[in-house]
Every structure is written in C-alpha cells, then in structure tokens.
C-alpha cells in the first residue's frame, strides 16, 4: 500500500500550536507512507486539488488527512479521493484541531500528539478495504412533529413541493404558542389574522394528513424509511361526526375546568373547542374534568350533540406510518415561574404571566379583550412588567437569554396603552435586546410615544398592600431603590424546551443539550440538520427564537427534507457488519443483541449461520463486540483495525 499523508495548517488554527512540517516529516517514516506533506488549507479547492495531484503523481492507494474533526470534513475528503479514482473508504482522518491544537498551547506536546494521531490513522488505513454502498428505495413522505408556526410552515412548504406530509400535534388544535398571542411585534398585527389562514391551508391541503391530539409513540427504522407509531389520544368525540357546532361546550356543566388554551385565565368546560379558529374545529373531552368519565354521572354532551358524536368508551388508537424523513418542531414551554417566591410564587392572583396577559388582551380570550385584574375584575391603571423572569438566571439553571421577551414586553406595553389610554406601564429590565428588523425602533417607540417607563434593574419583592401590589426594585441607572404601586404585575417569563422534548429526542435518537433543546448538526453550517440522517429541526425546539426566525427555519427544514426525499433511491452506508460464514458457529449471540433485528439465522449446508441484512444494519458494531470468535466484523471498524490503532499507540 502507498499512503499519502497531508497535514493541514487550517490557517493558524492548527499551525499556531502544531509544527505541521515536523508532523509531516515524522509521518513520512511510518510504514507504507509513500508521501507526506503539510498544506495550508486541505479542504479548500487548492488543497483538494493538491491531494488529487499527489495521489496521481505518487500512485497513492490511500490518504490520511490530519486536520479538523472527521465529523466536519470526512465527507468532503472522501469525495476528494473519489475524484482521484480511489475508493472513498481508502481514507482516514486524524483530528489534530479539535483534539489537539484547540485544546492546548504546548507546541512540543501538540506536535508529538498530532504525529501520534497520524500514526494511528495510517496504521488503521493499512487495513482499510474498499467498500461499495448499496441503494435502497425512499419513502416519499414526511413526518412533522408539532403544529406550531414552525411545523405548519414546514408542513405546507413540503406539501406544496408535492410530498405527502403527516403533521402530528399534541394539543387538540394546531397553532401552537402563536395562536395564543393577541398581536405580534414589531408590526402589532393580529396574530390570528396571519396565522389563521395558514392553519386553514393545513386543513385543506390534499397532501397533508393532520393528527391532532396525537403524539409520536415510537420511531424505528432509518433515513428514507422510518416506521412511526402515532398515538391518537382518546378525545371521546368522534371527529368524523363532530361538526364543531359547540353546543356541547355551551351545555357542559363542568364549568370549572382548567383552560389550557387560555393559560388558566378563566375556567372552561370539560368538553372544549380550544378557540373559535381551532384547526381541526372539533370538540374533545378532557378526561380529568369530565363528570361522566370521572364520576360516572352526567352525559349532558351526549344528550345535546346533534350528530351523536360523543363516545365515552373511546380509547387511544395507534396509527402506523412509514416516512422518509422527520421534522421536529416541538417548540417551547414557559419555565415554572412559581419558583420565584419574591414575585409571590403564584400566590397573588394579580401577578400574571406574559402569556396569560396575552390571553387577557385577546378579543377572543376569556375577558373578551378587556384587561381586568383577575382578583376583582377591575381595570388596572398601573401595570408593571418584570423582564427576565427565568431568563439569564444561573441560580435556577437557566443562564441563557430567551431572546423574545424584551420585544413582546414592549408590545404588551403598547397594547396596554391602546386598551387603557390613561394607564401607565413600568418595565423593569436588565438589558434591552432588540437585534432584528425594526425591533430597536419598536422598543424606542414604546418609551417615547407610549410613555412606558423603563427602569433598568431587578425587582426584589412584590407584595400586596390593600388592593395594590407593591413592586420594589432597584433603578441601577439612578442608583436608587424604587417602589411602584401597581394594579397588575406581568412577568415576562422565560422559556425552555417543551416539557417532553427529551423523550422525543430519545425516540428520534437525536442529541439535546442540558436545557432540552435539540442539537443541530453544526452550529453554523447545519442549523436545521441533526446528526441523525433524515431528522431535521424547525423552530424553538432547536433554540429559542421568535416568529420570523421560526418560520424561516420551518422553510429551511422543509427544503432539506424536500432535497432528501426528491431522490428515488438512497445509498446505504457500507460501514456495516459482515459475517465470515466459515468462522461462524451459529451460536446466535449477535442475533440476540442486535438492536435492529438486522441479523438473521440462515442454514448453510445444514449448519446454522448468521447473516447480516445489509439495508437494515446500521453499523453500531455491537454484534462484533459480542461474537466470541470475531466471526462477525464491522466494516471499516474491524477488530484488526481497532487493534492496529491500539498497537500504534502502545508499541511506540
């Protein structure tokens, strides 16, 4: 074998703390290395061309590039060697950037370590085999999980491109958080006027199948062919018969049920249609509030329903579907603001969350768009907004900025003035973060035109005195303590990943960070991909973002999914297990442990043997580590290849 080694400077990223020429000189002495050099930018066009030229000039049969992480550029360089006529698997990478140059400044140690990593890579490459992928057909159907604005956008874009789309939404209606908003910043246009038509489009699109009040139960399979089980939760209403007339919701006697859609601002009935523009506009019964389902006595809704749609015996239903790709768009939840005892910890009715306030502002909300104090129904005059409740607070494990609270607080202050012209708003803030088109102008307008009083400082205590709430805080610009007598306090509660996002991540086999946000493939270059092929991200589930960004990411995720599913066939990864039938004793241990049922027992001349189903195997190598005699090996990560790496480190 003739190996070529290329040590990349990555500008000064590597060369700054690694003597690349010395590494190349050392590499030239390794077994089978026919050519070694250092190179400024291996991944750039001149770099790639130089590699191709060297392969031809020195008749190289394998290439090692020492540069960044293979998770970044392995696909790039595999294509490069392929262009030079080599099999793409006759290539190895040594990660001397993330694992060497970026984590230490000791040039001597770094240079030595880089040379070692190259030695490992070359030792492994000597045992590499040419591998050829197989093709398999793709299911041209997309699953979108989450029917907020990001999921709606992704579903519509993909459906418009001709893909079949399955949209799964946990709540009885799509619309997500945006549907709860009264107006949107910075244009102060009506949220339901812009979202409503898109929701209708979802309902009417011939390519979209909507499963509302449903959740993803399990996901198996891989890119191109995921097998998904969807749990359609029992709504106790036959949605085929339900016309959405709402008679049941008028007559239901369980009138003290928690109103999820209205964030508990007022009570609702046990059978609900969340809001007038709901899609699908169908009734559903919340089991824990229903008198019949909990107490066995009632049945009013069944009596009044003109179409006989009520079915108290309904059970959850499991729907199975095969899809080629998945978009996760599960959004966010507010943090539990009740942990802040200094703001009353949920004890004072007139301390409300921003989302509750949004429902109080909304004309379709429980107060009909009139701002009323929850305690006594009186219109407030002095309204205090407290920002960063649960954002930028390391003490509760939420050190990040939620990103959109500054803007919606400004919007809510404007709307307060619009609703109650003689009102005065106060906003306690840490910093105003408004980097967006027209955003900073908006936060100025609220102060200059709408005369909201912005106070830079934190609130230390909110307490009731008489029928007022005393808000005590610091004005750090003036250096004084301030006390405001407020009628209503609105907490700009920060956001976190949706409560069950970690569970979904486990089902989708994607990574998530310590706050529950899903990990993108690369923070810059793969913002909507994940490291699991065929799974894409849209909206706040990847990281908090406002409506325009969520919509943009929804479209981006759709574009990626469309690109994937526009192909009829996909290449399977050839880094899969293979069996040496003559060494297999047919003990079946590999079959027992394989997580994918990718190994089957066959009969070979009367002897039981294991056989790998190539399109099912995902290349984890668990079978390889299980087989006592090593009869089943994982291509590209064989025992001998790993042993060669270990030997390279131990022997020298």
């Amino acid at each position, binding site marked *: 074998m003739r190996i070529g080694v290329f040590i990349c400077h990555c500008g000064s990223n590597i060369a700054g703390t690694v003597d690349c020429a010395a590494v190349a000189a050392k590499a030239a002495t390794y077994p089978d290395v026919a050519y070694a050099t250092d190179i400024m930018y291996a991944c750039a066009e001149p770099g790639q061309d130089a590699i191709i030229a060297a392969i031809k000039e020195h008749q190289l049969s394998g290439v090692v590039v020492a540069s960044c992480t293979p998770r970044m550029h392995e696909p790039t360089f595999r294509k490069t060697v392929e262009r030079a006529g080599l099999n793409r698997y006759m290539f190895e990478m040594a990660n001397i950037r993330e694992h060497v140059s970026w984590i230490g400044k000791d040039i001597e140690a770094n240079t030595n370590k880089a040379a070692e990593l190259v030695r490992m890579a070359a030792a492994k490459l000597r045992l590499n085999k040419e591998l050829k992928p197989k093709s398999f057909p793709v299911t041209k159907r997309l699953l979108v999980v989450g029917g907020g604005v990001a999921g709606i956008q992704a579903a519509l874009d993909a459906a418009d491109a001709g893909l079949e789309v399955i949209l799964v939404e946990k709540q009885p209606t799509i619309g997500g958080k945006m549907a709860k908003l009264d107006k949107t910043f910075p244009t102060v246009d009506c949220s339901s006027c812009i979202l409503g038509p898109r929701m209708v489009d979802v309902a009417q699109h011939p390519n979209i199948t909507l499963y509302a009040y449903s959740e993803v139960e399990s996901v198996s399979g891989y890119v191109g062919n995921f097998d998904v089980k969807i749990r359609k939760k029992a709504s106790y209403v036959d949605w085929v018969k339900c016309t959405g007339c709402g008679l049941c919701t008028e007559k239901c006697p369980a009138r003290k049920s928690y109103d999820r859609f209205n964030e508990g601002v007022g009570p609702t009935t046990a059978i609900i249609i969340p809001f007038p523009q709901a899609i699908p506009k169908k009734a559903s019964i919340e089991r824990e509030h229903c008198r019949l389902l909990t107490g066995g006595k009632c049945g009013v809704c069944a009596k009044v329903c003109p179409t006989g749609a009520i079915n108290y015996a309904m059970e959850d239903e499991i729907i199975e579907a095969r899809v080629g790709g998945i978009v996760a768009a599960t959004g966010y939840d507010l943090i539990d603001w009740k942990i802040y005892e200094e703001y009353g910890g949920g004890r004072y009715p007139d301390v409300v969350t921003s989302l509750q306030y949004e429902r109080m502002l909304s004309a379709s909300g429980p107060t009909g768009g009139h701002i009323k104090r929850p305690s006594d129904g009186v219109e407030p005059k002095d309204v205090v907004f407290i920002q960063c409740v649960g954002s930028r607070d390391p003490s509760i494990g939420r050190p990040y900025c939620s990103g959109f609270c500054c803007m919606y607080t400004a919007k809510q202050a404007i709307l307060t003035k619009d609703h109650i012209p003689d009102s005065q708003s106060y906003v306690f803030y840490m910093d105003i973060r408004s980097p967006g088109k027209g955003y900073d102008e908006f936060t100025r307008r609220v102060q200059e035109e709408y005369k909201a009083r912005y106070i830079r400082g934190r609130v230390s205590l909110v*307490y009731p005195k008489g029928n007022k709430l005393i808000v005590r805080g610091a004005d750090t610009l003036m250096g004084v303590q301030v006390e405001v007598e407020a009628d209503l306090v609105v907490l700009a509660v920060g956001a976190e990943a949706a409560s069950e996002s970690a569970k979904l991540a486990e089902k989708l086999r994607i990574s998530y960070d310590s706050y529950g946000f899903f990990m993108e493939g690369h923070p810059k270059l793969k913002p909507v991909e994940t490291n699991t092929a065929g799974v894409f991200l849209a909206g706040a589930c990847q990281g908090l973002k406002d409506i325009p960004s969520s919509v943009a990411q929804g479209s981006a995720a759709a574009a990626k999914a469309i690109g994937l599913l526009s192909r009829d066939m996909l290449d399977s990864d050839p880094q899969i297990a293979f069996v040496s039938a003559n060494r297999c004793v047919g003990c079946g241990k590999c079959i027992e442990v394989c997580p994918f049922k990718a190994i089957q027992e066959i009969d070979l001349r009367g002897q039981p043997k294991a056989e790998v189903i190539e399109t099912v195997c995902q290349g984890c190598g668990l079978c390889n580590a299980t087989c006592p005699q090593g009869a089943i090996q994982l291509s590209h990560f064989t025992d001998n290849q790993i042993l060669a790496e270990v030997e390279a480190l131990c022997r020298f």
Partner: protein
Amino acid sequence: MSKITLGYFPGCSGLGTSAEYEKSTRAVCRELGIDLREIPDWNCCGSTPAHTVDPVLSSAFSARVFAQGEQVGITDVITPCPSCLSNLRNALRHMDDELFAARVDALTERPLKQEHSIKSVLQVIVEDIGLDSVKARVRKPLTGLKAVAYYGCLMNRPEKVMRFDDPENPVAMDQVLEVLGAEVLPFPLKVDCCGGSMSIPARRSTPHLAGKILDLAGEMGADVVVVACPLCQMNLDLRQGQSRAAGLKYTLPVPYFTQLMAYAFGLSDADTAFKLLAEDIAPAFTCMSRRSDEIKAEEARKAVLAEEKARAAAEKAAKTQAGTETAAEKQPGGKSRANSASAAGGAA
C-alpha cells in the same frame, strides 16, 4: 422521650437586650428534651463590627468559640441569634480554605481538630425535634391569635450558606406558630429589611423601614409580629415610638417565637418573660381570648347544626322508607336557623 445534647452559644444579646429570648429558649429546649450545654468561657462570635473590618480576625473569634467547645467534647452547636449563626457558619465555611484556616489558626494558636456544625434553634426545633413533638407539648393553644412571622435578613440567607427553608418565602416559624394553634397570616414582608444595620449610619431610615413592616402587619389584622432575631426584635419593638413619629399607625407587640412556645407549653411567667418586651403583649392575648371564645361558640353551633342535620336525614330516610314525602319541610327550617346563628355571630 429521647433527649439530645447540643452545645449552646447564647451570643452577646442573650445576656442583655434579648434576655427574654434567652430565657424562653432555654425553657422551650428543656421542655423539648434538648439538653443545652453552654460553651465554657465563650466569647463574641466576631460579628459586627469585626467582620466588616477584618474577616480573618472575625473568623478567629468564631474559631475560638468552636475550640472552647471542642475542649469539652462539643462539636454540634446551636444558637438563637441569626447574626451569630451567620458569622459562626461563615467562619467554618471560610476555614475550608486551607490558607485562610492557617491565618486563623495563627491568631488563635488552637487549630480545630474536629468537624463542627452550627445551627439555629429554629432549625433544630423544626428539622430535628419536629413539629409533631412541638404539637404534643401544647397545653394552652394560641387559638384565636392572629400572628405574622418575621424572619429578617439573616435567618435564611444567603441561601447557599444557610441551606434552611426558602430564602424568599421562609415558612419554618409559620409552621411552628400554626402547631401552637395561632392563625398565621401570609405576610409578604417576612424577609424585608428591618433597618437594623442602619440604626447607626442612617438613623432616620430605621424607624421608616421598621414602620413599614409593622404597618403592613397591622393592616393585615395581626395581633403580634413574631421574630427570631434579637436585632430585628429590638428595632421593631423598641422603636415604635420613633416609628409612630414617622407616621406609623399601629402598635404591635413583637415577641420571640420561643416566648409564644413557652406560653403555649403552659410554662411560668419567668420562662415566657413577656414582661421584658417594650410593647405590652396583653392586648394581643385579650384579642386572642375573645376570638377564641367566638371560635368555640361557632364550633358549638356547627356541632348542633350537624347533629340536627343528621337527625333530619335519619328521619327523612325513615319516612322515605315509610313511603311519605314530608322531609322537604324540615330543610328550610334548618337553613333559617343557620342564617340567624351566623347573623348573631356577626353581631358579636
């Protein structure tokens, strides 16, 4: 009853301004089976003003206290005073740093050899003795007493050092008062500043800050403001004249929680030491007994009512069985009686 033995650090105010706290604490601990062993020849904990000037010297004061305890085999110490608690605990925490500890040791020349712990009397009563044991000892319940609990700044804060109760909305004292039988009002200014440390540098703000606390308590209808800190007690109790001059409307007694415990346990006047309070507690107890009578009367009425209802139901059941349907007449009668009863209660 199982007895526990703990080292005891009374603190300087226990010998002077908070003698009533000291007396009642000792009495209550005796009743609860806590054997207090006072640290021999104890000294100042090193709190104000030392810790603001020289943290090492301040910690050395604390270290000597622990060393004195160590000499007689005491390593677990309690103190009633939150300020002492804070300084003693901070000293232990600072001495986790070897360099700091070495500097302290150089001053005391008596390095600590054992692990030490320091807790407040309140924490030991709530966490180690338990509210059930407290409840079991109540002879004269405080039924009818409207109380607010005021914790001050130091008892629960900083959170990471004190690790006891909620730093913004503590409830330990509330719970104690509740098992004593008092009605505890949800007081929002539990951890507000009483102005204690301002009394020298900014004297005029102290009555103002203390007054705000008393004002809200009074507005809420409290009979007493219950405290656990000598400095808070002094500010709230002693300065009510100044506070009134600054616009305060209410006069309220400010007892220590241990005094009310001693009272509810039925201990002697010497143990409750109420007479050492500046504002007389007697009016509060007058309100308490009046309300207690009302509550008893109300309970008696309810009992009669319930009895009547039960009898009516039994009769109705009997009649239904007999096939007659006259039970309906009974109910309006019962209702009107209830109405007149509550009207009478309101008038009283």
